[in-house]
């Protein structure tokens, strides 16, 4: 009988409650933001300055918006302007506060068979990929990055790429999509942070960047307390003030990976 009581004792010890944090807040962020590693710098500083624990839910833009809509998080930090505005229009959030931007980059095989390296702008780069029918891996998951990519194809008069055999929709997150591209040695669009932090580059290289249409604006949206009275509005406000304040600016503006700056702080006071 002893093994049974052992098991029960073991189980009992595990069910004991974890310490509850006095002040915490749930923030849904996109995978690309988290992949940048910036949160590892910001969260400890927030904890120190505000004594506030930010619990990050790292999800896709779509899921982040759904979590905010349902009131399962207190605020969201995403980068898909149109979706954000729809979210606000539906009354799920109180307002939209721009914090910072980074940019999207085009990645591809080192030898660049499509020759996008010297394209004049993003439109031309995409057209070259299409013309040479080089493999291109898309997120294909309706995320902020995917929405941006579709908009770019559309701008390049190539709205129907999804039917092409060289166009592969991965239906996955940024990391998984980069893994796929790396495996297929294909072109792919990614946010710069994800790319720099990505550990499985294989034969891929950053080939094109810098066109202003590739800028990727992050915005902070508090969940509407009228719909969800339980959201911690006061703490959200504190967090918003901090994210748009001087300490955040200093940390964001000096955050580098491999010596490269990632984000441009552009919050208006």
């Amino acid at each position, binding site marked *: 009988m002893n*093994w049974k009581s052992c098991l029960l004792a073991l*189980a009992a010890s595990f*069910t004991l409650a974890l310490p509850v944090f006095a002040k915490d807040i749930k923030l849904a962020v996109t995978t690309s933001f988290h992949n940048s590693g910036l949160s590892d710098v910001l969260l400890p500083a927030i904890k120190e300055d505000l004594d506030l624990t930010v619990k990050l839910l790292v*999800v896709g833009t779509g899921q982040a918006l759904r979590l905010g809509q349902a009131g399962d998080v207190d605020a969201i930090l995403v980068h898909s302007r149109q979706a954000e505005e729809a979210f606000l229009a539906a009354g799920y959030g109180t307002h939209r506060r721009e914090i910072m931007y980074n940019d999207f980059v085009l990645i591809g095989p080192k030898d660049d068979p499509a020759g996008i390296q010297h394209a004049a702008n993003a439109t031309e780069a995409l057209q070259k990929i299409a013309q040479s029918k080089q493999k291109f891996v898309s997120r294909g998951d309706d995320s902020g990055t995917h929405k941006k990519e579709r908009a770019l194809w559309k701008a390049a008069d190539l709205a129907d790429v999804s039917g092409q055999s060289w166009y592969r929709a991965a239906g996955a997150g940024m990391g998984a999509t980069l893994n796929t591209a790396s495996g297929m040695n294909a072109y792919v669009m990614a946010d710069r942070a994800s790319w720099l932090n990505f550990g*499985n580059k294989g034969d891929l290289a950053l080939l094109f960047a810098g066109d202003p249409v590739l800028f990727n604006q992050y915005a902070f949206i508090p969940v509407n307390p009228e719909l969800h009275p339980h959201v911690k509005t006061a703490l959200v406000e504190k967090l918003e003030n901090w994210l748009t304040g001087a300490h955040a600016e200093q940390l964001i503006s000096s955050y580098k990976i491999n010596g490269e700056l990632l984000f441009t702080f552009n919050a208006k006071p």
Partner: protein
Amino acid sequence: MKCWGFCRMNEITQGLYEAARLIFSLDSDLLEIVGLSLRVTLTAVVIASAIGLPLGAWLVINRFRFRRATIAVMNALMGLPPVVVGLLVYMLLSRSGPFGVLDLLFTPTAMIIAQVIIILPLIASISHQTIRDLWAEYHDLLISLGASRRQRIMALLWDGRRALLTAMLAGFGRGIGEVGAIMIVGGNIDHSTRVLTTAISLETGKGNFAFAMGLGFVLIGLAVAVNLLIHTLSRTERASVW
């Protein structure tokens, strides 16, 4: 620099190295993650067993109208995709869902609930099959001795305990390696709801294959350790007959 095969082998070796480094440095984050993995899955196994084992036995000794249908549904639920369970539990526990006021979403409790739902059909089905065989053997004796329904269930569970342990360990295996459901209902929040599988998924997403592999090896080691521990405690290998 094409290096398929070799590079990957290298990453597996690196994974082993990472696993060793994590374990021997007693990395505090790792301990936290492992602790939560064990806590969530073991609790879920205990709860699912407390329901599933008697349920399996009950289904064996009772004849009722929808018995066959119940068993069929239970067997089918064994193959339930964890993501579906996760989504279901999410919608129930969401602030906008029926149990939103309990504020359980993104907590270990929510993960335990999801895992109980995932593990329960497995434990109930395996125990049902095990106990059905034992019942065929014991039926006449237990009726003859005048055992009550409750006493019959107790006798079957107790005498079938070693086989039932296998059912529990199968449940543990399914739970400890599960990622789809706990990712959705737990949220993979650092220092709060991050477990081995969600951490692996996260690191894979970042392309940190070696580190992800390292965590994978830790997971395998953990599963083996738990199985060994339980088998040793229950002396399964030593009693040759049952």
